[in-house]
């Protein structure tokens, strides 16, 4: 086990431990129903968190995703209400828009040499505002194709439903893992996270990579919007406020270092499921306020930040010890 993968194993261990605690208290937690719901309920978060992982691995941040998801919901709902377009056509259109939106932010970040924080903050307001321009109210979706999508599931043994949107999330994670860990683009992302100047010296096309990174995040946010619209069967411009922060939390709990350069996409899935598990536990308990979710997530985040810092220190010390020897 290398120092790099230690946070990943820590994440997995914490998840399994938490699940064990839940199971001991509520044996019903270990059913395919709960697991199926865990995947379905957190599908939108998982998908956008995959995009966020790539962004954070590169040393950046994308604050716009929550607004983009909300925009996506409203856009889909209104398009389906006001035009005769088939949902699949609307989805394609939407993904093209959000991907281009992400690419534009990436372009600005690179060309203006602006911090991603500021550029995506502007993007966050823009996307939220665009959602309001389309509709101020919640718009229900009652397209027959949506009923098909909503009812598409695989019945697991034990009556648990593996829904389409849960599967989409798992596929997204799989795709994210391949892109981050198995392609030259992914290596370039890690290179940027390791140091932009060095990456440039080693031949990375920094501009192109930056644009692709934020375009990918935009695409994932769009896909997350599609999934969320299926999940809620409506579009509402005020939805998903703060989702970007949940996604960042999931990425960090998943063991990715917030300053970039080290982490695993799979860890993000575990991070999302850990956050979902806490929520589920509170539902099972029934007496706890749902705010406890936030408190536990806050504590977990703190734990992981400390863990990462500790590991960095340990590494530095080991390095020093070696150079002395």
């Amino acid at each position, binding site marked *: 086990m290398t120092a790099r993968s230690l946070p990943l194993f820590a994440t997995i261990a914490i998840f399994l431990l938490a699940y064990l605690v839940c199971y001991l208290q509520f044996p019903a937690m270990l059913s395919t129903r709960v697991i199926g719901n865990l995947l379905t309920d957190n599908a939108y978060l998982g998908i956008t968190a995959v995009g966020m992982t790539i962004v954070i691995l590169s040393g950046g941040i994308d604050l716009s995703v929550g607004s983009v998801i909300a925009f996506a919901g409203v856009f889909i709902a209104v398009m389906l209400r006001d035009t005769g377009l088939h949902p699949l056509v609307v989805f394609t259109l939407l993904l093209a828009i959000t991907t281009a939106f992400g690419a534009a932010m990436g372009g600005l970040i690179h060309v203006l040499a602006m911090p991603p924080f500021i550029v995506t903050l502007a993007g966050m307001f823009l996307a939220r505002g665009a959602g309001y321009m389309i509709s101020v109210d919640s718009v229900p979706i009652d397209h027959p194709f949506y009923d098909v999508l909503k009812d598409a599931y695989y019945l697991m043994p034990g009556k648990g439903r593996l829904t389409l949107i849960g599967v989409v999330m798992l596929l997204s994670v799989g795709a994210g893992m391949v892109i981050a860990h198995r*392609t030259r683009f992914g*290596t370039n992302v890690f290179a940027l996270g*390791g140091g932009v100047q060095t990456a440039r010296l*080693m031949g990375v096309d920094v501009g192109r990579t930056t644009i692709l990174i934020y375009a990918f995040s935009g695409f994932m946010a769009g896909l997350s919007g599609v999934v969320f619209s299926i999940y809620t069967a409506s579009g509402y411009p005020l939805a998903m406020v703060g989702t970007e922060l949940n996604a960042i939390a999931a990425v960090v709990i998943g063991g990715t270092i917030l300053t970039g*350069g080290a982490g695993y996409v799979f860890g993000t899935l575990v991070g999302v499921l850990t956050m979902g598990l806490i929520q589920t536990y509170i539902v099972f308990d029934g007496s706890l306020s749902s705010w406890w979710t936030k408190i536990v997530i806050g504590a977990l985040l703190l734990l992981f930040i400390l863990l990462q810092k500790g590991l960095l220190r340990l590494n530095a010390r080991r390095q020093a010890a070696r150079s002395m020897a």
Partner: protein
Amino acid sequence: MLLTIRSLTKTFPGTRALDAVDFDLRAGEVHALLGENGAGKSTLIKCLTGAYQRDEGELHLDGAPISPASTQEAQALGIGTVYQEVNLLPNLSVAENLTFGRQPTRFGMIDQRAMRHQAEELLSGYGLGVDVRRDLGSYSVAVQQLVAIARAVALSGKVLILDEPTASLDARETAMLFDVMRGLRDRGLGIVFISHFLDQVYEVADRATVLRNGQRIVTEETARLDRLRLIEHMLGHELEEQTTEGARHAAQPAAPDERALHFDGFGRRGKIEPFDLSIGRGEVVGLAGLLGAGRTETAEVLFGVHPAQSGTARAPEGPLDLGNPRAAIAAGFGFAPEDRKTDGIVADLSVRENIALALQARRGWARPLPRAEQNRLAEHYIQRLDIRTSDAEKAVGDLSGGNQQKVVLARWLAMNPRFFILDEPTRGIDVGAHAEILRLIEEVTEDGMSILVISSELEELVAVADRVIVVRDRRHVAELTGTEIATDRIVRAIAAPDAKAGEAA
């Protein structure tokens, strides 16, 4: 001839960094490039690697003219560079670093096994027991450097430029690196080796070229180049020519002074070996030596930038704590560092603000220095040091180098330190300002301030110092007093393999 450079010239505003420099590199040789700071080494390298565009001159590689416009292009042509700071990514695996940009892919995905194979093959000639799957950052700097060399050789394969590769290596690691260099030389690579350590130059280099002030002084087989002559070439002094006029050393014998500062056994591993130093009130001690020999390191240890790991400091009133620059300032120390652009001035602040900076820092933020007082200070020092500025509100960054330096000096003088360390106070400033700064040193010592001045300009040390301490290989090796203070004695002390040349009588 593998690489020929003919009358390469590069000018920057105000300076001629390279002046019609010729340089030849044979296939299968290690060619050392030597010179003090500002001699033009790095400019030459940057012209070769495409970081700078030359103004005049020709580059030929394998007989064909080249003009690389970027590092990538230079790499593709066959010129690879490895810097002292390893320019690889510590967060990627060794294999990823070695194959970066050329990873073998299958169906658009990186073929991990093929990548490992390729990486292992690249490293096979280097005798490193390295697991290419591990993070580069988990290995020592020496290994990282060898990996960087392996990558540069694989990418370029004709000319390898090593820019101070041994600066952060220990003896064993250096030996390992030299073995690799010899192996590559025998494979027919031309290696340009930049180092401040002359022993290493003699150990590994076949030929050496010395640059000084942007000009090529000499190119010679190292076997036929006497160490003393080499240092003379680097510092620009012929033994015959002696500069003793204007010296002030006869005036004061180094009588023990109870008001002196004493440093006993001061040292820090990897920086400077423990040394003893006493400086009397109003005394000017010069520190001479080649770049990287321990001059700046001595200053930094004294000022607590890199606090001493051993030894004690004592002032008349008792022991001093010099654990960090704040403590050193509190003890009445001042330090004008060598690189004023990055360490000395705040370029965007005005002359007035820069001068008031240190004084304000000592008062603390709760007691702002009254504006009138700031103005008075600024006016006083602008006059006293003859700082050429339209007014006190001009941004320091807009002043010339000499005037910037005067602002740095003014800031410290405003603190009225008892011990002031000047690291290359006259580097890169014009002759007039040069003389004024020397005059200023005389002036403040009359008021009792003690000064340690570091300089590559031996005449400057001879003119201004009461005593000269010579450093070599991170050690204080000699102390010259009285009539011993002359450029030829200093050069001999710097060159002497053992420290007899200038030991105090």
